[in-house]
């Protein structure tokens, strides 16, 4: 099976273990280009675990084991010859809690490009400005690029973290409940941003908030107890779920 051109990541029969605990069972799904894919499901069902498998962040947790394949641009991420560091440069990630570095706003965004060896001040300037604009935070910080990132509000910090990820020019953007620590206004700004980003970046977003999934995503995958129960067009999934567990979840009967 060759990945067709509208598929950027193809997950096949993925199992994942934390030590002896099997956290994911036989997950298969496709992430498409120019789309927002939402991962929903009750807490502890394995959404974050799954997301972190897409950029090999789980490699950092000792005692974990992966079986199955994550094919990204035609290549299994878990092949022997793949360097996880390269993968993380190509697949960006935004975390649940905003986690800017205790550095200036500029240095936060320039962090990734500098890792890539970009030293030229002009190029860094350009990249920083462009990324901040893309993350819709430029207007708010353009006069205070030297100020500490920690002086920003939570919502601003999260958009800064998005800018920081975008500065790497990632091929995919992963977001793990990026608004769960934010107030409603900051949340809606991030949601608008996600909408705007999808034309340039495939976005995979974990959310425990079904309204959010419905608002921002094109496709939705429903996870339950380590399995991917159902995936499909978001509107279809929310209006005509095929599986009973999906229906129970979206009608609020559990989780």
């Amino acid at each position, binding site marked *: 099976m060759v990945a067709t051109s509208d598929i950027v990541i193809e997950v096949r029969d993925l199992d994942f273990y934390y030590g002896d605990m099997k956290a994911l069972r036989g997950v298969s799904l496709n992430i498409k280009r120019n789309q927002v894919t939402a991962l929903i499901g009750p807490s502890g069902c394995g959404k974050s675990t799954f997301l972190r498998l897409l950029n090999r962040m789980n490699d950092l947790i000792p005692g974990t084991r992966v079986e199955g394949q994550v094919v990204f641009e035609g290549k299994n991420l878990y092949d022997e010859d793949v360097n996880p560091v390269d993968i993380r440069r*190509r697949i960006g990630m935004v975390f649940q809690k905003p*986690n*800017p570095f*205790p550095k200036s706003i500029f240095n936060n965004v320039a962090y990734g490009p500098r*890792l890539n060896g970009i030293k030229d001040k002009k190029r860094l300037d350009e990249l920083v400005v462009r990324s901040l604009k893309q993350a819709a935070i430029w207007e708010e910080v353009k006069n205070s690029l030297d100020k500490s990132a920690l002086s920003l509000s939570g919502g601003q910090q999260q958009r800064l973290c998005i800018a920081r990820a975008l500065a790497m020019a990632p091929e995919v953007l992963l977001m793990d409940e990026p608004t769960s620590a934010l107030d409603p206004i900051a949340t809606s700004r991030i949601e608008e941003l996600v909408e705007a980003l999808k034309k340039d970046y495939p976005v995979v977003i974990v959310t425990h908030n079904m309204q959010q999934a419905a608002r921002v995503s094109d496709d939705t995958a429903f996870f339950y107890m380590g399995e991917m129960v159902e995936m499909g067009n978001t509107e279809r999934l929310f209006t005509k779920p095929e599986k009973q567990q999906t229906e129970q979840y979206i009608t609020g009967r559990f989780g």
Partner: protein
Amino acid sequence: MTKGGIFPAIIGTFYLTIGSSLIALPLGVASAIYLSEYAREGWLLRLIRLGIQNLAGVPSVVFGLYGLALFVVFLGFGVSILAGSLTLGFLILPTVIGASEEAFRQVPSTFREASLALGATKFQTICRVVLPSAMPGVLTGSILGIGRAAGETAPIMFTAATFYTKHLPTSPLDQVMALPYHIYVLATSGTHIDQTRPLQYGTVLVLISLVLGINIFAIIIRTRMRRKKTW
């Protein structure tokens, strides 16, 4: 014994303090990086930690004799700033390692995670995120240790200090006068106690002020950094 002044002793103590910091800081920080970021739990790590704890408990005169045997005699540095700095450096090494490890522990794991997720290697993450964030803690803890070293007599009496020299040191292989040793000699070897006692007390005052100054400096760094730090 009443002439000459203590300026050379102040300078000597200053050089020894700087010298021992130059040795203990890089070595201590590097050790702490290994211990807290790279080493795997196991018997080896436990052994190393035990060694460090014991090192912290070794009487300072033993460091002095060890420095005499290793640096002064065996390595042939002679009684010198270099030998004294190395000896004092090893004396404060456990303090620096302890302070650094504690400072690394305080760096939130979310910083490390953010850096790694951007495709930084572990080493890049340590150099660019962990170390800068931990530096205030490393410095504060270390400076307190260095303040202690500045007042020690035993480690330098065989390795660096001389009672009297008119010359200021011109090379790391020169001997120096040093405040603590000066006090020791004034207190024990005087033939005109009544004349040297005021000098002795004066020197004590200078030394105490110096150590106090170093400690206050450390505390200022700590409070300033605490105020800035909001994670």
